[in-house]
């Protein structure tokens, strides 16, 4: 029986390196894109772009065939590590809390719901693009309800 990936030090280290790079990139984007009239544009952009890229990456890897070591390294390093670290739920939640506390209820709701709706649309777009550019294109529903 093979060990679970999360128990393999080399893979944990790979996720950590990806997460470090993603976190530094997020820090940079947040500084480059400060809040506009209270709207945290930086976090919004990071989360929507990150959701798109993760959808694309995971779908492209899924359709590339059985996961070998290289594909697993890409999934864990770029996906779980970099894009997981690049996007953030904690900042989103805290920013909504802050806007709500400042009495900007409408903006808090728009930011929260807007992030979820735009993020979901972006991830869907990424998945569709990842499926489309793949050469082996099974019906997306073939992946089945068990996946």
């Amino acid at each position: 029986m093979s060990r679970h990936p999360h128990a393999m030090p080399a893979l944990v280290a790979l996720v950590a390196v990806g997460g470090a790079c993603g976190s530094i990139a997020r820090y940079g984007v947040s500084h480059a894109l400060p809040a506009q009239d209270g709207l945290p544009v930086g976090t919004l952009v990071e989360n929507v772009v990150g959701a798109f890229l993760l959808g694309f990456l995971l779908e492209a890897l899924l359709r590339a065939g059985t996961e070998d070591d290289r594909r697993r390294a890409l999934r864990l390093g770029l996906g779980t590590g970099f894009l997981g670290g690049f996007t953030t739920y904690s900042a989103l939640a805290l920013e909504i809390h802050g806007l709500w506390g400042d009495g900007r209820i409408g903006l808090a709701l728009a930011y929260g719901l807007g992030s979820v709706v735009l993020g979901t649309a972006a991830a869907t777009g990424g998945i569709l693009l990842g499926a489309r550019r793949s050469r082996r294109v099974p019906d997306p529903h073939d992946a089945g309800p068990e996946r």
Partner: protein
Amino acid sequence: MTLALVGLLGGLGAAARFWADGWVRARWTTRLPWSTIGINVLGSLVIGVLAGLLAGGAIPTNVYTVAATGFCGGFTTFSTATVETVRLAQQGAYERAAVNAFGTLVLTVVAATLGYALGTAIGS
């Protein structure tokens, strides 16, 4: 210096997320992605505590930045949560997809709010 520490703590946060997610998934198969939900709620609680401590003057800004932007940011993830929502919808589980998307949003904001109250109480 802050940038390097944000990277270090962000890497630790991502590794902790990978480990916690794998630990949960190795034990339970659930109809909702509870490991990601739990990770995002826990990270939101912690960032709330940190923000409360910062507001009360209990920790300096650079410590807050490294712990909040680094660790909590690396630990929590919006991209995985969102892709999991789309996967549920692709399986036709639209209700669970909606519950995952909006439930995570509500729970994380509640967690951040509780954490902030806790942090200001500790810090004062």
